[in-house]
């Protein structure tokens, strides 16, 4: 299964992610 997020945010928003990175629910994935 897969969860896709699509959202609008200011241009200062950036993901704190990397491809193939393992994630835990509740972990930070983005900040302004």
């Amino acid at each position, binding site marked *: *299964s*897969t*969860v*896709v*997020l*699509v*959202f*609008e*945010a*200011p*241009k200062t*928003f950036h*993901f704190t*992610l*990397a*491809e*193939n*990175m*393992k*994630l*835990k*629910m*509740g*972990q*930070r*994935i*983005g*900040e*302004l």
Partner: protein
Amino acid sequence: VKSSGRRKKFMSRWLALSSLSVVLYGVVNKIKHKGIQQNSSLDPDESHSVKPNSWTLYAYSTLPLKAISRVWGQFNSLELPVWLRSPSYKFYAYVFGVNLDEVAEPDLSNFRNLGEFFYRTIKPETRPIDMDAEMVSPCDGKVLKFGIIENGEIEQVKGMTYSINALLGQRKLAAPVHRINYQLDDDDVVQRHEEFARLNGISYTIDDIIGGRGENIHHSYMNQGDQSLKKSSASQVYEVSNDIAKKSSFDKQLYFAVIYLAPGDYHRFHSPSNWVTTLRRHFVGELFSVAPFFQKTLQNLFVLNERVALLGYWKHGFFSMIPVGATNVGSIKINFDKDLVTNSIYESDSYAQTGFASSDTSSCGREDEGTPLIKCSSSRTKKVIKNSCYEATYANASKILRGQPLSKGQEIGGFKLG
């Protein structure tokens, strides 16, 4: 020796014949399904055909995946004898790397079947929510893709994209085909929602948006082409404006992230931020596997599969979250939407009262046209039409917010086996 040779020959013939008949069944089904689309008053939506780049993928796409998924679900709903439960779940945990220490239920034999174990809850302390973050992960899993959406296209993998319109549904936001009937707010709920709006900088409701104050905010991202924004009070149909490329607000972007949940992962999903979901679109699609291999080889995978698009807004504007099903996890559950039933042969009863549905996801059913593309009957006899979109609104959930408020880290729902 002779009989074993004969047996082998018989088995191989039988296997070849049965796989050929399954593929044939799938091809006949596809042709039949095309017929339904041709007969309906809508042009078949191109993004719903598998453009396989090999015959293996074509054969795969003819398999009765939803039927397989339902059988898989039935099988995993069979109650296991108590003595067999714990060893079975421990074996599953060993194969798929489940961390049993995190499971909220200490006694594994309390899970009656694998389906219940798969939909387990975990100890809250094992997943602390980063409350200072702008956005948190909605679920356990692996990051497959993330980035900025340019020209309404999301990158599935290198060189392969799908359109946001196909993923979320597009254009005319139909008047809700199905109203989730909540009890309207009593005082303390109103107060709580006002607090939610204030705390999260949500200083507008959908009326502000429709009034044009948040013209960059609302569903315009699901729309291409220039249409002026107008809300016809009679039918509540919103012609929503704005071409994605010409977004009216120049300080904002559209972002996306794709998170893949492996079979051993905790399979409930939570809210990634404080937001309000106003609309749900259930796209009845296929149930291809979404394993990374298929994401790399099956074009348009995310707009082919059954999925539930939760649309709404947060303090920066448009927000949506789309759980996408797969063969082994055909059932998508949304805790506050009891009417939603996915991977089912029949439409859920709730559509029977109010249902309009469209057998084309380009524009969900529209009440204002008065052309019920598929008028639902009052009993569970209506078969779900593939590649259709069933839309429901949560506007009744809150007078203030005109939708269902979701706080960061709050459990929204999950994926169930089959």
